[in-house]
């Protein structure tokens, strides 16, 4: 195996494009090294992106926050302005593993690992985040919900790497929330999860909403119908019940020892309601 640690994104792209065999990008390594240990992958080449300075940065620009692909989730948690603007995205990122894992794991890695139960992904989808991908043919911007195509599979092509995740610009009366169900409080993987991102207008009227669910389908899913239900008017019981129903309908979960189809479907609605209430309150709405 060859270990390469380029210092520029362009060099990483060149190395990814020309390397033969099993080629893997190493961000935090909290998934890749586990798969190597288990013998599920035997890389010929590993390209470590952590030496690329621009990928280590959290930047606040005119178009919102950008989070470099090599930024650890603990760094996101320590970033006050990011936490204030995107409490749901940060709480989701900070639910991944232990403090030890937090010191390594990244949201770009969480996204590209393409687990249906990835904690940060529903929050990123609800946030309308975009993955900025660099490749041999230049830059392309892909909505995060379109990155994973199946469990463990992404739409990234040979030579491509996510450079950063772009979060939209924030203003007052906007907030998000992420909740998951796990049998244990810590060190567990979501059985079901829900993320809600809301924008409020005058008098607590919802002017925009995005809802996403995790661990209830082969990939984390956006629930577009939920936007129509939540938009216009305050967050009342009728809206919450309709939200739960539409979330139940969006579920196509597996049946396993961690949760039955019936359980996951039901809990998706429950968590969506709770996350909606939380996001609504955080955005300044009164329930």
């Amino acid at each position: 195996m060859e270990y390469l640690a380029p210092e520029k994104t362009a060099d990483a792209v060149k190395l990814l494009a020309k390397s033969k065999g099993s080629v893997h990008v190493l961000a935090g390594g909290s998934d890749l090294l586990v798969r190597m240990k288990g013998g599920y992958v035997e890389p010929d080449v590993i390209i470590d992106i952590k030496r690329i300075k621009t990928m280590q940065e959290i930047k606040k620009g005119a178009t919102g926050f950008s989070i470099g692909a090599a930024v650890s989730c603990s760094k996101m948690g320590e970033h006050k302005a990011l936490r204030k603007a995107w409490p749901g995205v940060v709480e989701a990122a900070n639910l991944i593993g232990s403090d030890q894992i937090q010191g390594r794991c990244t949201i770009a890695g969480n996204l590209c690992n393409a687990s249906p139960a990835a904690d940060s992904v529903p929050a990123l989808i609800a946030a309308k985040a975009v993955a900025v991908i660099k490749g041999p043919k230049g830059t392309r911007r892909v909505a995060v919900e379109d990155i994973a195509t199946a469990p463990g599979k992404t739409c990234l092509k040979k030579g491509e790497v996510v450079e950063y995740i772009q979060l939209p610009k924030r203003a007052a009366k906007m907030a998000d929330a992420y909740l998951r169900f796990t049998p244990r409080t810590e060190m567990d993987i979501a059985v079901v999860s829900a993320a809600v991102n809301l924008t409020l207008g005058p008098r607590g009227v919802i002017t925009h909403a995005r809802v996403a669910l995790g661990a209830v389908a082969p990939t984390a899913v956006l629930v577009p119908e939920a936007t129509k239900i939540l938009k216009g008017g305050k967050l009342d019981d009728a809206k919450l019940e309709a939200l739960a129903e539409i979330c139940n309908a969006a579920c196509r979960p597996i049946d396993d020892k961690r949760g039955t189809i019936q359980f996951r479907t039901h809990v998706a609605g429950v968590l969506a309601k709770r996350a909606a209430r939380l996001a609504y309150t955080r955005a300044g709405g009164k329930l």
Partner: protein
Amino acid sequence: MSVLVSSIINGDNIEFACEPDETLLDALRDRVGMTGVKEGCGTGDCGACSITLDGALVCSCLVLGAEAEGRSIETVEGMSDGNVLHPLQQKFLEHAALQCGICTPGFLIAAKSLLEKNNDPTEEEVRYALAGNLCRCTGYDKIVRAVLDAAKQMRKA
């Protein structure tokens, strides 16, 4: 082909050679002789191999040795001041917060990392901060009590 790595380990400049797919855990144990770093699960679940890497608490089983080039590493071997134990080490002894001891170095490193960020944690905060460390003999009460007691002593010092 092996990779030559130079790192600062517990304050000393140390060079070691390791295989490109070798974990930092294996490199620290087998190449550098830092056997205080323990392997429990090897998959980031148990925290026995906890170290700090440029100040960040990590599982060394989830880091490649080659990634440590130019980085600063702290292991349990660097915790005591000569023959004087770190307050956490002393309190672990006083509270009998260990039995077999395999998990202890990881707990000590994780607890030290917590106390550097928060010198007055609540019991709940200690339990959350140590959630990535597993102990299969003692249970956690004595460990949590030792950490709280060490924090108290360190605040006075």
